[in-house]
Structure formats: C-alpha cells, structure tokens
C-alpha cells in the first residue's frame, strides 16, 4: 500500500453532525491534510461548529492555498473544492447534483492528483459523491462509505466498504498509521 498523503471526506448536509463526530476522532498530530466537502447553503457558518470538538484547525481555504498536514480544509460556500497536488483549487464550475460545493468534484480531483495515496470517506444520504468515490477507488485509493444503514444508491454502493459512525474510528486509525509504519523501517 502506498503511504497516505491525503484524506478526503464528503458529506451531504444531513450528515453534518456525524462529520463533526468523526472530526473529533482525528488525532492532533495527523500526518496528512484532510479535505472536506459538505453540502451547504450560501449563509451556513460551518467551520466554527465543525471545529468545536476537532483537535485540528478547520479552515475555509482561499484559492491556491497550500495543503498542510494536520489541518482540515472545508469547502467554502458557493465553490467546488478541488485538490491540485499540494494545493487546493477552488472552482466556480456549475453546481452538480444541485450542489456547489460538490462531493464528486472533490473525490475526482483527489483521484487525479493523489490516486493510491488518497483515502476517501463518503457519508451516505445523497447521490452526489458515489461516482467520485468509485473513481478514487479505481485509481487505487482506499475508500469507504459511512452510514447507519445503506441509504440511497444501494446497488452502486454495494462493492464499497461500509462503515457505521461507530466503526469509522478504527478505519481512520488503520489509515493514518499502518501505511506510515510500513514505509518507516
């Protein structure tokens, strides 16, 4: 397995509370950046509530900001958030699935720029994100979906690893540390 360079998380608006819980599980010295797209309206203030219980800073990046390990980058309202190597790239392409920020866009860009060095986590509840997560999986990224039960796009999500809010912690722990310990003799 390639060493992990990036964790991307996508979630519909209905999963905001679950996202907050998962961010709270992230260790304070996470060695990779976290890039997060959450469906949102133009006026939702999200960075502060999401960061309340998170050990890492949660920021809404400007275009072309550098990605630093141990920081959570939240897609700003009205922009798609894309990953471009070691930077973020914002985009005003039209909304997809009625959403901007969109989840497919983020997963697709992570697949292009990091491939097997990216891990993707999608919270269920919306059709957006499923296709992008499959692209990331096809490029060798480690992916999983989180939901209390299978909701929406049942058939399409069939071959993806299913997690519950209770088992995400274990999945994240394996991601962050196993690959690194393998590359460090």
């Amino acid at each position, binding site marked *: 397995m390639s060493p992990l360079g990036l964790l991307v998380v996508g979630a519909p608006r209905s999963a905001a509370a679950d996202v907050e819980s998962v961010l709270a599980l992230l260790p304070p010295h996470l060695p990779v950046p976290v890039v997060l797209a959450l469906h949102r309206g133009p006026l939702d203030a999200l960075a502060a509530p999401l960061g309340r219980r998170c050990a890492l800073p949660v920021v809404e990046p400007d275009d*072309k900001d550098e990605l630093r390990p141990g920081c959570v980058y939240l897609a700003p309202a009205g922009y798609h958030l894309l990953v471009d*190597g070691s930077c973020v*790239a914002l985009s005003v*392409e039209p909304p997809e699935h009625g959403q901007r920020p969109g989840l497919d866009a983020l997963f697709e*860009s992570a697949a292009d720029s990091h491939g097997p060095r990216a891990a993707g986590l999608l919270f269920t509840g919306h059709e957006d994100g499923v296709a992008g997560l499959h692209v990331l999986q096809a490029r060798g990224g480690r992916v999983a979906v989180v939901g209390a039960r299978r909701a929406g796009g049942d058939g399409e999500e069939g071959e993806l690893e299913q997690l519950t809010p209770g088992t995400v912690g274990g999945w994240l722990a394996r991601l962050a540390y196993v690959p690194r310990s393998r590359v460090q003799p």
Partner: protein
Amino acid sequence: MTGPGARGAALEALEVDLLLEGVARQWGFDLRRRSRPQLLRRLRRHLREERLDSFSALQGRVLHEAEALDALLRTLSCTPPALFSEAAFFRDFRTRVVPVLRTWPSVRVWHAGCGTGEDTYALAILLHEEGLWGRCRLYASDVSEGLLADARTGVLPLPTPEDARRYAEAGGKGALSDYYTRDGNWALLHPKLRDGIFFTQHNLATDGSFNEFHVIVCRDTLLAFNRAMHDHVHGRLFESLARFGFLCLGRKESVARTPHAGAYEALEDCGRIYRRVG
C-alpha cells in the same frame, strides 16, 4: 499500485497533454497553465457532451475546426449565469468604491474575464444608478470570441425574482426590470448600457496590458489558472492598474502570495477589494 484504473489514468493524462500541446501550437491558446483539476473536469464533461470516446478523438476535431475550438473554450469558461450573482460584492462596491470614484473626473473600468457579460451588465447598471455612467469607460474582455459575441448582444435569460432580490440586496435603487425589455423568456438590456461597454477579445495568459485603469474587476476568473499563471496574470493586472486604483477579486481569492502583494491594501470589512497604494 498499477490497476487498470491507474493505467487508464496514465493514458488519459497523456492524451490530455497531447491535446493541450496541439491546441497551443495550432491556435495559440495555451491551456497548459490552467488549473489542472478544473481543466480535467471541464474536458471530461466536454467529451461527454460531444459524445466522443477519447481526448484523441477530440484532438482531431479541435485541430481541424475553429468552431470545435470555440466550443471547447466555451466549456472551459465558468462565469456566473445571472445578474448580480454575488450581491455582497456589488453592495461593497457601491458603498466603498463608488464614493472614491465620484471624486475622479473620469474613470476607466476593466472587467477581465467577462464571459457572457452578466457581471459586466450588473456593473453597468450600478455605475448608471450612481450617476457615474457618463464619465466611465467600461471595458470588458474575455478570451472566447463566442462568449463575447453573446455578451455583445445584450440579451440575457429573463431575470428571475431571485435575481431581482439580489439586485435589491446589492443596494439597487430602482427595479431591475427598469433596465431591460422583456421578449418572451429573454431580457433585452437597454441599449444605453450595452452601447457604453467596450467588449474586446483579450487573453490574460498571453496578451499584455492594454490601458491603465482605475478599477479592475477580475472575479473568480483566475481560479481557472494554475499558480504560476495566476501570479503571471497578477503581474499584468498590476501593470494595468493606476496607483490608488481598485482591484476587485472573488470572495476566496487573494493577492497575498502574488509578487505585488506589498503594493496592495485590502479595504477593511468588505470582500476582496484591494487598493493599489504602491
């Protein structure tokens, strides 16, 4: 890990590189310094819309047909589809920039990356309402002739009640419908607005400065470029902006890491409007 996905990705990347090289050499449009993730997404969408199987097929078409190139440039452009798309910007412009413009005898404004002109017309309406239209020269540029041709017609999809609400939120002093005549589902903007705008083809990536301006509006246009080109274009914008002139960027754009960051001061408590002080 080299699965079929990774091999497909490598081949796609090669095809994209060849396509961009071809476009640059045949048409002089250098798309290689675009923001790669956005470019890839737009190109893939274009491929689906054109019902082509590969970028190699697209390359064949684009090299031989000028119309195919313009269709491609059109897909790559992402300008707002409605008037006053971001009310907060126009409100800040009205309250913070307009009072300064009033004190100047004449004002040259450049809207760089105007696309089909929605924001240009919104700006024209604002300047008109503030009594500045008579001494303003508004230049609007885009790289795509096709988009400019649309912009020059002064015909837009009929504004929705939502557009009218944003117009009011932006400090609009009348009714948005005062500025156009309805024709079915279309709005014909008043000729006094349209005829006062100089639409001109200009490629930010390759063309130099073409005048000195007091205001440059370039909002979310530079998102389409990669870091190197973004900084290069900022150099052009800087050269084109008069001292004490205003540079208006998108809500999530910044001059912070550009070569001329030190020459700008951000206006306090408003979006991303900078004043050139150095």
